[in-house]
């Protein structure tokens, strides 16, 4: 069931928000011990909130499609009076005095927050094998990683526990778990969704967005959370629109860019085949697929890594004397960032602007890019290298290879499932658009979804 279907059923009184929430809580109780997707469950608060949602609906106060719908947020978003750990030992007892803007907006839209989702420590990694709160497991195969850093968000949505989960994306952290867990994941344009009240990882790369069961559900959540926020210095005043695609929306005549270089190199064969299948489907639906040459994305990735290292270490430097409170992988990255010369950081930001200009030229030739979300399917938990194109690669670098540069460019990107591997793991397509064209990429995604691109619901827990 999607958010839209749940909303219709709530209004038709087929079930109440309290019943819907109680059913979600029952799923948490049953499945969270296997998945470890939640760090904190706020069951009592959620039931109270659902009761209020029912009363409001009965009294004719309708807050929109999220009214009475169970959701959850990555444990990086501040929640008033509910501990917010950032997946770290350093913040394990932190009780915020106010909600993050996104949490406020979701509450105002009537969503029922079930709690705080597990993640890679400090959102600084892609496995969600959290050394302090335990590894999150992928509902498609619990021996495999859900990706990260928003791994709990991907797992909770894929396992059918919540209808939407909030994630953050600094170098792929929404799109990777969406890809590995077979959910939709939307990274909006930088500045489109407020970062206020969310633990920063890298100020100039952090983006907030939803993971959902369908493209239209992602649009429904974006409608609730998008917009200017004076409390976020990077927040944009670009006008918001209605992001929900019309029923029967089409992509006839749309110019889809199909990169000749970089994005289709060193892919797992099944990933390449599924993504090419989605592109062929877009063509069959009337889109014009145009080969394009993209600027040097390998260089862009290097630039993004320099920026990330420096900014993340600037944020966490005050805590670096407590070395035993960090996981080994995160500590190594924080140390690296501290040793990076300031000149490198400034030059990375200079290169970033230049590359942004080069990339912008693409949009005169095509309306969007179709690329894989990741070159691989979800690795097994604990796997540190994978073999792609005959070469052994570090899992973190391989998994972020096709997503990281998009953060440096600040472009909106949608990850949607487009196939399953022979071993039953999801494969995803990434649709990248020009700045603030979320409505366009969501329309394309919805048209593809309507046109049969997708995967069956996750069979968890039957596997």
């Amino acid at each position: 069931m999607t958010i839209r279907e749940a909303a219709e059923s709530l209004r038709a009184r087929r079930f109440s928000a309290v019943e819907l929430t109680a059913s979600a809580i029952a799923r948490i109780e049953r499945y969270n011990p296997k998945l470890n997707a939640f760090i904190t469950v706020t069951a009592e608060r959620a039931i109270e909130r659902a009761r209020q949602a029912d009363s409001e609906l009965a009294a004719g106060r309708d807050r929109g499609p999220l009214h009475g719908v169970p959701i959850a947020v990555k444990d990086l978003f501040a929640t008033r009076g509910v501990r917010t750990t950032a997946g770290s030992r350093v913040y394990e007892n932190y009780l915020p005095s106010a909600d993050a803007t996104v949490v406020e907006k979701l509450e105002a839209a009537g969503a029922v927050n079930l709690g705080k989702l597990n993640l890679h420590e400090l959102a600084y990694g892609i496995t969600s094998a959290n050394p302090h709160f335990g590894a999150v497991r992928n509902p498609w195969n619990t021996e495999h990683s859900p990706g990260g850093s928003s791994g709990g968000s991907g797992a909770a949505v894929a396992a059918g526990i919540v209808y939407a989960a909030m994630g953050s994306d600094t170098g792929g952290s929404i799109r990777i778990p969406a890809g590995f867990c077979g959910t939709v994941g939307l990274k909006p344009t930088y500045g489109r969704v407020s970062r206020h009240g969310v633990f920063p990882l890298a100020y100039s790369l952090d983006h907030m967005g939803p993971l959902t069961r369908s493209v239209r559900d992602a649009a429904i959540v974006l409608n609730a959370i998008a917009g200017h926020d004076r409390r976020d210095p990077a927040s944009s005043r670009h006008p918001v629109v209605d992001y929900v695609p019309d029923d029967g929306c089409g992509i006839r005549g749309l110019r889809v860019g199909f990169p000749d270089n970089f994005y289709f190199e060193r892919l797992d064969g099944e990933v390449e085949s599924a993504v090419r299948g989605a592109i062929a489907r877009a063509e069959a639906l009337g889109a014009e697929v145009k080969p394009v040459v993209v600027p040097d994305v390998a260089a862009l990735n290097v630039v993004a890594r320099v920026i990330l290292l420096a900014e993340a270490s600037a944020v966490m430097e005050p805590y670096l004397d407590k070395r035993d409170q960090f996981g080994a992988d995160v500590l190594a990255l924080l140390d690296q960032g501290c040793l990076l010369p300031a000149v490198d950081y400034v030059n990375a930001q200079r290169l970033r602007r230049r590359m942004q200009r080069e990339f912008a030229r693409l949009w005169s030739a095509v309306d969007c890019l179709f690329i894989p979300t990741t070159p691989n399917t979800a690795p097994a938990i604990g796997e540190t290298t994978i073999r792609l194109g005959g070469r052994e690669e570090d899992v973190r670098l391989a998994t972020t290879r096709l997503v990281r540069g998009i953060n440096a460019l600040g472009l909106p990107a949608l990850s949607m499932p487009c196939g399953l591997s022979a071993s039953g793991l999801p494969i995803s397509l990434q649709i990248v658009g020009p700045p603030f064209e979320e409505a366009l990429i969501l329309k394309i995604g919805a048209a593809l979804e309507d046109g049969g691109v997708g995967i069956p619901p996750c069979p968890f827990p039957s596997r």
Partner: protein
Amino acid sequence: MAKARGLEVPDRDMDRIAGPLETLEEAFRPLAKDLKAEDEPATGFRAEETA
């Protein structure tokens, strides 16, 4: 360099820091070589934001 920076990094951790950082810098430095003086950074202070 770590000591100069005030970082107390145990010797056993140095391998996990120095190797990856060196590789990254080897890839990054050539990119920065052809930057021109007029290439401004992507982050910038704007006086009106604090007004």
